[in-house]
């Protein structure tokens, strides 16, 4: 019998070590790789318990930055999972798993400090993602907005995000005219009142923030306070951001219609069309006003123009309807930056 030494294979890393390696990768800026590996490669080895346990034992102060990285990493993985199979979001096991792990990580992080920049960014990012799905009803993701508001009660962006959420809740109620023809039900009005409260605070906290002002103007209009709405929608008219300027003019046109001023509405809609010609919403609004004024040929002409606009550009109205969804890319970039620039130890 020959005896020979066993080949010196390296021991495979433990699931926990593999998991910590992924967090390290993310911290070094290899975001896509870390997300991809956690999502596709390592997920079979690193089960939910490993990740949750890791979050619970990572209590030492120097691990805080690792926890922040894990918070962003799991969020990105969850977003990818949700986007890959949005139809079955509620029954998506991976989404549920990462949501639970995120709850555990979040609990640890806020145990260190409740108002760190990474938590602020994550609250905004998380809520922006939830708002993108909000019109589907109950989103199977944990709700952290109240914690964000509690930790950052004067933060203009947090207040804007809260206002946008209540505006979306109103939209969900009021969208079907058979259920609530003018959004006047108690539930709908309650949502609008909450939206007004948060948005007004947001404007007070940052008077130069154009989005909060535009949303506040629309909400005031929906509440029937047309004069106050006009004040918001005509203030700061030069935002320097074409999409917001377009929306401001679109809502101003709507306001003029509600004030029984179709000529004023046409002026606003035509200004919006002149600003950025591709979106359809302002053209359709103008066509509808013309139609109501009995100018059927004009209505047909403008509607036809609307349907012949370029296909490769989005309408700001479509983004507006999804609350803070449009900010996901920005918040993700900020969150990644905070993680990469953190100085804490990885071990």
């Amino acid at each position: 019998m020959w005896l020979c030494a066993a080949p010196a294979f390296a021991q495979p890393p433990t699931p926990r070590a593999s998991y910590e390696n992924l967090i390290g990768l993310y911290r070094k800026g290899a975001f896509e790789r870390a997300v991809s590996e956690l999502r596709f490669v390592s997920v079979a080895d690193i089960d939910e318990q490993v990740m949750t346990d890791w979050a619970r034992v990572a209590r030492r102060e120097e691990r805080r930055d690792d926890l922040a990285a894990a918070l962003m990493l799991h969020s990105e993985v969850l977003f990818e999972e949700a986007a890959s199979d949005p139809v079955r979001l509620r029954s998506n096991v991976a989404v549920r798993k990462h949501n639970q792990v995120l709850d555990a990580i979040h609990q640890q992080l806020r145990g260190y400090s409740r108002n760190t920049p990474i938590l602020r960014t994550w609250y905004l990012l998380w809520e922006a993602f939830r708002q993108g799905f909000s019109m589907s009803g109950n989103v199977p993701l944990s709700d952290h907005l109240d914690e964000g508001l509690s930790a950052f009660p004067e933060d203009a962006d947090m207040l804007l995000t809260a206002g946008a959420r209540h505006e979306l809740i109103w939209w969900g109620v009021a969208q079907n005219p058979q259920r609530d023809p003018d959004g006047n039900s108690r539930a709908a009005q309650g949502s609008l009142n909450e939206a007004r409260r948060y948005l007004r605070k947001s404007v007070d906290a940052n008077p130069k923030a154009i989005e909060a002002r535009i949303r506040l103007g629309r909400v005031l209009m929906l509440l029937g306070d047309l004069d106050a709405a006009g004040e918001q929608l005509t203030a700061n008219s030069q935002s320097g951001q074409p999409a917001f300027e377009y929306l401001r003019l679109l809502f101003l046109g709507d306001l003029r219609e509600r004030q029984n001023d179709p000529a004023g509405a046409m002026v606003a809609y035509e200004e919006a069309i002149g600003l950025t010609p591709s979106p359809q919403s302002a053209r359709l609004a103008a066509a509808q006003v013309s139609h109501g004024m009995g100018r059927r040929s004009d209505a047909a002409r403008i509607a036809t123009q609307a349907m012949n606009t370029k296909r490769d550009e989005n309408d700001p109205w479509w983004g507006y309807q999804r609350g803070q969804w449009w900010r996901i890319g920005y918040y993700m970039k900020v969150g990644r930056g905070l993680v990469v620039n953190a100085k804490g130890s990885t071990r």
Partner: protein
Amino acid sequence: MSMRRFITATIAGAGLIASVGAQQIRVGIEVVRVDALVMAGRQPVTGLKAEDFDVLDSGVAQAVSALSFERLPLNIICVLDVSGSVQGEPLRRLREGTTAIIDALAADDRAALLAFSNRLQLHTGLTGDKEKLKTALANVEAGNATSMLDATFAGLALRDTDPGRTLLLLFTDGVDTASWLTARRVLDAARRTDVVIYPVSVRTGPLVTIVNLPSGAAMMPMRQQSTQQGKESETLLKAFAEETGGRLFVVERQTDLKQAFLDVVKEFRQRYVLTYTPTGVPAPGWHPLEVRVKNRNVQVTARRGYYTSR
């Protein structure tokens, strides 16, 4: 001379004006045209004469001066939902059904093709050229969210000054997710035209919405159509039909779509067009209408009223 040219020539030759509202065709004095479907159970009732009808305009009985049946050329405005949920096999079925409508056009009929997701696209305006319509149909693609209300209004706005009858066939399989216009405003526009809306709805499951973020990232929020949302959507479609004198068709399977489309066109051809000169009614404003058939146990479907500005 074709029927379309005959009508146009008759009006023009008399030195009269066809108004753009089309609900009222002003020919020196104002007349009102009402499009009515008369059914006995599931069968359309034919052979009725003007004197068989009672028409109440704002509660005041009117004398029907003219009646036609299956004789006026049709304008069919196809407003087709091509949002994300229609991708694949449903789009094939939709094309099949629309092709059947095109093939069923008579010599004087015209059709238009308007497809919508979140974006509206007019593939072709009203034309009698069947090949042009089929080519346009072949270019229709599916994807993205649903702007059903915006598209319905745009279809109504396409109604031109032609004196033919206009059917707006509205196909959708879900709830509105992206329109700027509200249902109230679109219903108001529907009341201001003589277009008859026939919605055709397919009951489906989930809807997928694709949104491109300004940051460049593309993700897909989902909109799950619940049973409740489906019912509410049908209620809205029914309101469009009832306001304009049309009828809602609901099909359970995509495979039934072609037959539903053909049934809509067939039913629209079997409607009566009643004309009268309003007498003893207040103006301007909303005029509620009631159309009945004397001494017959039948159901009459007609628009609920019309607006007049003078």
